[in-house]
Each structure stands twice: as C-alpha cells, then as structure tokens.
C-alpha cells in the first residue's frame, strides 16, 4: 500500500512541478486572481452591496471555473497522447488508476493554491466588517470541491483526444451543461424525450444549485456525496478511457 501511494505521489509531484516549469502557472494564477477580483468588485458590486460577506466573490466561481478548469486540465492526457509519453507511463510498473489519480490530484492541488492566493479578499472583508467566517470557510471548501468535479471531468475528456484545444472545448461545453442542469434550458430538452426520473436526476446534478446551497453555509451530506461521486465517476471513466484510447 505504501508503495502504491508513493508512486501516486511521484506522479503528482511531477505534474504539480510541471505547472511551474513553464510560465503557464504564473499566467493562470494572474488570470484567476484578476478575473475573480474583477468579477467580485465590478460584476458582483462588492462595495455597493455594503455587506460583510463574500457572496459577490463566490457566486462567480462556477462561471470562472467553467473556463479556467478546462484550461488547467486539458493537457493532462491529451498532451501525453500527443507526445507519445503515454507509452513511457503505461510501461512503467504502475496501474492506470495510480496515473489518473496522481495527475488529477496535482491539478486539484494547483487549484487549491489559486484559491489560497485569493485569501487577501477574506482578510479585507474581516477588516471592513464582521463576516460569518464559518460560511466563508465552507464556501472555500465547496468551491474547491466543485473545482475538483470540473477538473475530473476535464481530465476524463482530455483522454479522448490528442488535441488540447478540443479537450478544452468539449470540457467547457460539458461543464456548461452540468452548471445549467437545474435550469429550464437543459431540463426542457431532456423532458421532451425522457421519463420523469431522468429529468429529476439531471436536475439534481446541477453544479449551480449544489454550490448556491454551499454559499449559504449549508453543507449537507448530499452535496458532499454529489461532488465526490462526480469526481470518482469521472476518474473511473478516465481510467477506462486511458486503457481504450492509449494506442489510438
């Protein structure tokens, strides 16, 4: 077991350092910080709301992640397949599950770093007023969990293609469907041909409705189970796709 985890950690370590080997990490972090602050202050009207909370900050995260998570995760498998290094990885004495989990965790930790860098805004709101820090902490955790779901979806879809741009586009489109799953736009399309229970299942998969409950400080078991099962399901499909598509 130790050896199993150790090799997963070596993969994670290589991937995580990989983000910082190129300017990609700095550019991503800058864009993330600029967009998240811009949305908070200009679109979210942080000051005009005159409330000591971070609703204006967190409510934009699903839309921000819709673009930024595919940008982080698009290379995970598409690049391995394009460059042929997938052949090196798979012929090493490791399982596909170790590879998939190691790579996913690296991207998830990178997102955690990005979220941690937004903490000055938390400090600011504490300086300006007396926010409910429990709600903010839960929202940070929920945001990171939702980022994990986006990333696992992107990782899974990036195993389908050798082209990072295609991986980015299909991940963004799939992410959009999952955000909008609770809205009539998606539900009416599903309702027309499927039985009621499918419509209800699709409706319950909405990232937006799960995340809006988290933002209110409500973190129930169903949300936790939803995001974790989403991550596990996507990574399981990811492992199968690597197996099937590796030699294409």
């Amino acid at each position, binding site marked *: 077991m130790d*050896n199993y985890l150790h090799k997963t950690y070596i993969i994670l370590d290589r991937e995580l350092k990989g983000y910082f*080997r190129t300017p990609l990490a700095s550019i991503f972090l800058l864009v993330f910080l600029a967009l998240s602050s811009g949305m908070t202050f200009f679109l979210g009207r942080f000051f005009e709301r005159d409330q000591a909370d971070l609703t204006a900050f967190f409510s934009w995260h699903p839309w921000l992640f819709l673009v930024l998570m595919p940008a982080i995760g698009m290379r995970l498998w598409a690049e391995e397949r394009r460059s*042929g290094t997938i*052949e090196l990885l798979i*012929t090493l004495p490791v399982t596909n599950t170790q590879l998939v989990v190691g790579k996913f965790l690296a991207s998830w930790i990178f997102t955690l770093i990005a979220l941690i860098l937004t903490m000055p805004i938390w400090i600011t709101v504490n300086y300006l007023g007396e926010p409910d820090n429990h709600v903010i902490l839960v929202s940070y955790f929920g945001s990171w969990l939702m980022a994990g779901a986006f990333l696992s979806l992107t990782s899974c879809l990036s195993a389908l293609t050798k082209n990072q741009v295609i991986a980015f586009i299909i991940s963004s489109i799939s992410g959009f469907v999952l955000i909008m799953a609770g809205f009539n736009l998606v539900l009416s399309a599903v309702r027309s041909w499927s039985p009621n229970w499918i419509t209800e299942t699709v409706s319950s998969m909405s990232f937006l409705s799960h995340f809006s409950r988290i933002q209110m400080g409500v973190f129930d078991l169903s949300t936790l189970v939803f995001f974790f099962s989403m991550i596990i399901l996507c990574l399981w499909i990811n492992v199968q796709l690597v197996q099937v598509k590796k030699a294409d």
Partner: protein
Amino acid sequence: MSDKLINAKNLKKSFDQFIAVDKINLQVDRGEVVGFLGPNGAGKSTTMKMLTGFLEPDDGEIFINGIDLKSNPLKAKEYIGYLPEGAPSYSDMLVSDFLTFIGKMRGLSNKKLSSRLEEMADQINLKEMWDRPVEILSKGFKRRVGIAQALIHDPDILILDEPTDGLDPNQKHEMRNLIKKISKNKAIVISTHILEEVEAVCSRAVIISNGKLLANDTPKNLENKFLNRNTLSIKVSNKINNVFSKEIKSLLKYDDVKIQKTDISTHTLLISDSKKNPNLNTVLKQLSKLKLDVIEANFQKVSLEEIFRTITSENNSK
C-alpha cells in the same frame, strides 16, 4: 532464474479488420541481441508494444522472466526497459529531473538512484546536457536520454524501437557500441529497418512482414540459406563481341550468364544458377579453353538486404 527472459507464444493483435500481428512466437535468452526487421507497418512496433505491456494481445501469452505479463503486469514490467519509437520524453523537464522521475517510478532507492544517475551520465555521455531541458537537446541527445531512461533500473530485458533512427553516422556507431557493451547479461530486442545494424550488433535476426514472422535465425545462417543464389563474378582482360559472347554462354551451361563491359579492355561475366552454385574451378577451366585471361574472380555474396527483400517480397506476392 530462467534464461529465457522473453517467451512470447502465438501473439495475435488486430485493429478493427487489420491483422497487425499474426501468431508470432518469439523467445529471447540472456546474452542475445535480437534484431526485428521488417518493412514499415510490418508489425514490429505492435509486437514490441505487446512485449512491454503497452498493448494487450488479442490472443497468445507473454512470459517475462517466467512471469505472466497478463496476470502479473506490474511485476513483469519491472524487468523491462523500453525505448518507444521516437524516444518520447517530457520536453519541459531537465535531463536530470526526467531520469530521476523515471528512476523513482522504477522503485530505485535514493542511494541506488544517485549511483545509477552517475553511471548513466558517464556511460551514455549525458554530462554536458545534464542540467538542460530536454526540449533544447539535439535529436542524438534526445535519443540518448531515451536510452538512459530505459537503462536506469539496469533491467534484464531491453526493448528498443528504432534506437538509431534519425542519428548521424557517428551517433549510430556510438549507439551500436553501447548496445554491444551492455548486451552481455541482458536480453535485447531492437527494431530497425537498417540491415547493416542487424549485421553489426545482432546475434539473431527476426524478419516480420504483414504481421507474420518469416525468418528467425542468426544473420550468418540466413546468409548460408541463401548461398545457392550466389553469383560468380569473373573479370577478364579480353574484348568480347556478340558472337564470342554467345559462344561463352553456350559453353558455360548455367541459367544466367551476363557479360558486361567494364572498361575499354576488360569485361565482367556474372554467372548464376537457380539450381546449383556455379563451380569456380569448372568455370575457370572452361574459360581457359576459350583463351580468356581471368584477372579477378569472386562470389558476390548475398547481403542481408537481399535476403530481406527476397523474403518480404515472397510473402507479399502470396
């Protein structure tokens, strides 16, 4: 420990309707260097990918040092070092970081890893590029890095897919010397379409075409098998006109006698026969009867290249 480090039986692999590998059997012992020869698309790379566990065969089984690759892939893969076609590597990593990563994934302890890294830097001449990113390296150095990652854990089995492809003649020579140097206690399989490479480094040649194994023998034995197709070349210092040419051909009584003008005063006779080898003594005696002055006589031995062409074209015409 079994001497048969690679034992592949009845390997079969298809992609949709296309049969890439068709019932190939291959055994490689310790100390052997097996050269995989075949035209492009013959099934060499697919066979190698199956031997390394990258692809699963549709049928057949592979034992690596006696371990079933299908039922115990992680253990079996520990014995193999693999250089995939094109020597892929992580271009953004430093050479040292890349080799360290592979070494750790191969389960080397820190102490063992650092001594192996030093050995690789020396043995494969990577010192000057050690702290450079892989992406700025020349093709030759990238190939060396590929070899180093395959060798980092000192594996019993080395599978190298076109290790000298794209290298200049000096680099090719160096690579062949390296393969020879490390071959003593390993089983090595290299694929190539350069026949001189097989003659230079391989103890056995395996010829594959259309997914089928067509020949599996030492380069020497393959040459001997094809000796009956040898051509006797005789240079004479006489002028030969058409009438004289017909006279010579009728006297020699071999299937194929060609007479070519070499220069102003000499001609060359190329004598071959599909049923028997031309006999040098008999031919010389007959030529002396015609008062031809022989200045040079030798057998044009078939090269591995001709054998390869013959075998693969016979298979294609079937």
